[in-house]
């Protein structure tokens, strides 16, 4: 028996399988080494990196909701240079693709991030976060305005030799429109969705449960919304789509592939089952074998509508 073929191609890169881990939910990879054979994964997307180190938002930063969670981490990260010096050496050895999620406060910051990371060995692609709801300036504005989204994409693409994946915000009217804009801007792929803006209140204290008042909703609760958006975007653009949002099981992953995603990212599920990403790789392998497919990509976009 031959190994099931799970390879997919995004931005000219071949991934050994379509299962990536979502930014901010998998640390810098090492945190999950006790639970997952990192080299079994298609790739990992590391926590969002900004030019300077960031403290992030004050606590409390997370709250559980029905079937999901709100977070307002606020892009706490070690900053570009410490990331390169402290995290990349380990990441180069994990035997899978490393995608760096970047976030800037201005076009120029995005450019500089893209430029500097292009010089670093061991990075496969950039995921440009124009959609984080937890940072006051920058982030969201870029993600909700098509012209801005296009401009950011163009800026990063022009200054970076790496494939550029743009990560879209769901907190918009028409996500397909933003997707088309970043496609025009030169993105090699889009990934979606980032978290949905939400809120929770502690009735006893009458205060928001998050110090930041609002936060981003993730987890199984948002899966139906994410799947709908991925389906809409997959029809609107020609570049590959990476599906994100509440993916917890192999079935969930297959739903996104059927809807048109070329790959998926596992996010919040990593917290509830640290082995989730690897289990999905294994599940997809079984699916390919059981259904006698030549390659997992035979599922992509195969949603039957008639």
């Amino acid at each position: 028996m031959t190994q099931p073929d799970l390879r997919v191609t995004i931005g000219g890169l071949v991934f050994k399988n379509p299962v990536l881990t979502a930014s901010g939910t998998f640390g810098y990879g090492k945190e999950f080494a006790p639970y997952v054979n990192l080299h079994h994964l298609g790739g990992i997307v590391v926590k969002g990196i900004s030019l300077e180190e960031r403290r992030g938002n004050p606590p409390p930063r997370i709250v559980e909701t029905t079937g999901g969670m709100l977070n307002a981490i606020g892009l706490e990260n070690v900053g570009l240079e410490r990331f390169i010096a402290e995290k990349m050496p380990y990441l180069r050895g994990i035997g899978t693709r490393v995608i760096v999620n970047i976030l800037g406060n201005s076009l120029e910051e995005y450019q500089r991030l893209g430029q500097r990371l292009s010089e670093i060995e061991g990075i496969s692609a950039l995921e440009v976060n124009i959609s984080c709801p937890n940072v006051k300036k920058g982030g969201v504005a870029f993600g909700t305005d098509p012209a801005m989204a296009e401009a950011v994409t163009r800026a990063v693409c022009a200054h970076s030799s790496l494939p550029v994946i743009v990560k879209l915000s769901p907190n918009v009217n028409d996500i397909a429109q933003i997707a088309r804009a970043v496609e025009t801007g030169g993105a090699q792929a889009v990934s979606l969705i980032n978290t949905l803006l939400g809120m929770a209140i502690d009735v006893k204290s009458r205060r928001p449960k998050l110090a930041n008042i609002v936060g981003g909703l993730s987890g199984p609760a948002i899966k139906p919304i994410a799947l709908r958006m991925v389906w809409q975007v997959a029809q609107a653009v020609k570049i590959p789509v990476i599906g994100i949002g509440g993916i917890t099981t192999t079935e969930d992953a297959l739903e996104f592939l059927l809807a048109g995603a070329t790959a998926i990212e596992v996010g919040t599920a990593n917290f509830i089952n640290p082995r989730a990403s690897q289990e999905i790789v294994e599940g997809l392998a079984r699916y390919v074998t059981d259904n006698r497919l030549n390659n997992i990509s035979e599922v992509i976009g195969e949603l039957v509508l008639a």
Partner: protein
Amino acid sequence: MNQCEEQAEIVRNEQLAPEIFRLTLTAPEIAWHAHPGQFVMARISPCYDPLLRRPLSIHQTIGSHQIQLLYKVVGKGTRILASLSPGQKLNLTGPLGHGFDLAGTQAVCLVGGGMGIAPLYFLAKEIMRATTPPKCIVLLGARTAVEFGPLPQDFIDIGVTKIYLATDDGSLGHHGYIAELLHQHLDFHPWTVYTCGPHPMMKAVVSQCRKQGWECQVSLETMMACGIAACLGCAIPRADLSGPYLHVCKDGPVFKAEEVAWL
């Protein structure tokens, strides 16, 4: 790193007091590597409500295969936990976090309030195991007598001779807060005080330790999603309120009192 994921089997789930349970599990990997002050993250249900794992301190290891958790029913997760029966499985990750530091302590005082008693028992066992155990005083607080259940006796059974209790309602021991007993029982030795419990209690303990110059280690709680330093949800401010936040699941849950801010 000696963390792992383990499908633990429930041996016993005893009700010690109206809302307090003690869960004994077969979890050899975790039992083997556990240190006092560390915790596990328990996946309460295979469904997605509750979604997140729940952090629980390791109350003790028994032999090389079992661990015990001591928990209070406060919400839906712990309520489901209380309904589990022997033979059922509970998925755990652990042991997690940075536990108590035992090096070079000659006189120790353990101050526990409510479920804060959970990790202190494991610590006491470790302390009493030494060939010449240090001087050891245990102070335990609860809202009311019944909430102690068999716990004070458990400390006595492992050789702790100086144990003092306090209850908010005066139903057993000192009528008032446990922190008030500190200065009555501690002399001018270089004490190391270990404390875990409600925030106001720990704050009071820390403030006395600072005054007296006693070393103090505190075990803290925050909301947690991952327990393994990946989500960055468990941030707390440093003592000087500046610089990057500390993360309770990795830098803690046990900290030196002077490392963290007492707001």
